[in-house]
């Protein structure tokens, strides 16, 4: 049984973003693997070791964008595939789900597909469930621990608003992993060398045997958030009790409570 893990390439979380001529710019900041997806790669590598299968890391993006795939290879994934086609520019999340599902279907004997929780650029967090829906597989999202996994099925703990829910399903299944799963490993020296040498196959829509799904979500405008004018007032003077009393009065006077 093999495993696929889906990763996205995003601007570093510390990047200073701006909008220039309607285009998003992140200056000199590097593109990196979406931080949530490192947890997914970690889970995929652990489970492949338990089950004795191979891990294919999959990303949909521009042909030049392979940093995330290389990072995952360096962590220990066996294969990497980039899904890229000029016709995919402007895909919305349902379109992306259909394309990734078609790519997953092309990989042999897939029992599990891992995702991160959410992409830190678009912040949608819907793709794992959507890919599962396209494939017709169970969606086990926001998983913090995998309690049982064998050829017949999987039992996981999920985080919900109310706490934890333990669910089980058959395989194949789609799993999105959250941070509680455990710290992702660092790429090894050997891994980094292997990844640097790897040639990553690119699958275009022709190879997937599908037409470009037509996106219905448009982003007519991107803008910087309105600058908030905040007049910061530093409360000083007197003992901690006096400062606390002044602060409490000022908080009450703002009438937000």
């Amino acid at each position, binding site marked *: 049984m093999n495993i696929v893990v889906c990763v996205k390439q995003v*601007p570093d*979380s*510390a990047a200073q*973003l701006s909008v220039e001529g309607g285009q998003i710019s992140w200056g000199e900041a590097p593109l990196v693997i979406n*931080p*949530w997806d490192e947890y997914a790669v970690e889970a995929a590598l652990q489970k492949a070791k338990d089950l004795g299968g191979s891990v294919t890391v999959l990303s949909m993006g521009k042909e030049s964008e392979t940093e995330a795939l290389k990072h995952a290879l360096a962590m220990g994934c066996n294969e990497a595939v980039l899904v890229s086609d000029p016709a995919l520019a402007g895909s*919305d*999340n*349902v379109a992306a*789900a*259909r394309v990734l599902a078609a790519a997953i279907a092309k990989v042999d004997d897939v029992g599990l597909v891992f995702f991160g929780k959410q992409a*830190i*650029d678009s*912040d949608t967090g*819907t793709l794992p*469930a*959507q890919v*599962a829906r396209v494939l017709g597989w*169970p*969606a086990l*999202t*926001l998983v913090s621990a995998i309690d049982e996994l064998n050829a017949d099925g999987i*039992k996981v703990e999920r*985080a*919900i*608003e*109310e*706490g*934890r*829910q*333990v669910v*089980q*399903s*058959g395989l194949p299944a789609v799993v999105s992993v*959250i*941070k509680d799963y455990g710290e992702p490993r660092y790429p090894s020296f050997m891994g980094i060398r292997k990844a640097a040498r790897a040639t990553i196959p690119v699958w275009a829509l022709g190879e997937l045997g599908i037409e470009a799904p037509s996106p*219905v*979500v*448009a*982003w007519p*405008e*991107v*803008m*910087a*958030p309105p600058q908030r004018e*905040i007049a*910061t*007032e*530093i*409360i000083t003077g007197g003992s*901690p009790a006096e*400062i*606390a009393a002044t*602060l*409490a009065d000022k*908080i*009450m006077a*703002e009438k*937000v*409570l």
Partner: protein
Amino acid sequence: MTNKIWAYIDQFKGEALPSSWETIGAGLTLAESLGGGVTAVVFGENIKGVAEEAFQYGADEVIVADDPTLGDYRAEAYTTLLAKLAADSAPDVILFPTTTRGREVSGMAAVDLNTGVLVDVTALEVVDGVVVATRPIYAGKLLAKVQCSAKPQLITLRGRAFAKPVEDATRSGTPITVPAALTEDEISVKVVDYATVSGGVSLADAAVIVSGGRGVSNNPKLTPPGDLDEAGQEIWKAQQGFKLVGDLAAALGGAVGASRAAVDAGYIPYSNQVGQTGKVVAPDMYVACGISGAIQHLAGMRTSKMIVAINKDPDAPIFKLARFGVVGDLFEILPPLVEAMKARLGK
């Protein structure tokens, strides 16, 4: 089911999540431009009370599916039913709260209905009869206008971004009941168990959040029990700090948050983390105690209405966003602040 605007009510064990009612409020505002009223949709088991509340919060019609197969939320069962109802009645817009379930069901229903989903929206407007949404992207560093050309337009609303309608106890109605779409055999996921965290105000719904950072472990005056190792001593110290943070949260009827540094150091569970890789919150008041204000933390709380910062370091970036700041030791400021706030709030 004639209304063009639907509001999906997210409930857990017969209790609606508070942000669900905001979907009815936002729906009623849209209805002023688009016409008609708002139809609330509730799925679950033993949810009569939720349906009644939906009327009280302003829904003019409530669709209820009350069935044992819907007792535990399962994405497949909920999505299949919602997509079926929407395919039959063709609403123009379905609003969801951006809860874990709301996000999932809306995303999956978008696949079934061949439409799109606009997630975690903070503002809505109607332009030439089309709903245009505003949503933060890159953790709020930018805003995007988004719109969906297919119908229904599925939209999830960020908690607390839209006002909750005023409850009117005199309103009532008779729900339209519909059957579940799948039988138990057709649902592949089984719920085995729950470990629910009881009580407390959830970060998403809290009007006030008091958060602690790495600074909460920094009180040299405390002497931890001698039998702890170094890491244990640090955590013990941090827990004393978080107790003060919790006291202030309790005095203000709020929730406790944390920076990632506090979570990573094991002071407090990840579910309390605020920030780019934690929860994004927008309370009326956010009090940051011993938090420096790294860009990834600010991403999670910058849209709070009023920010108060307590930090030893006058140059901490958190002060730039703060309406009020105290440059000082949180261990000295918090205890009298708790008392002062209690006195002013009449507690």
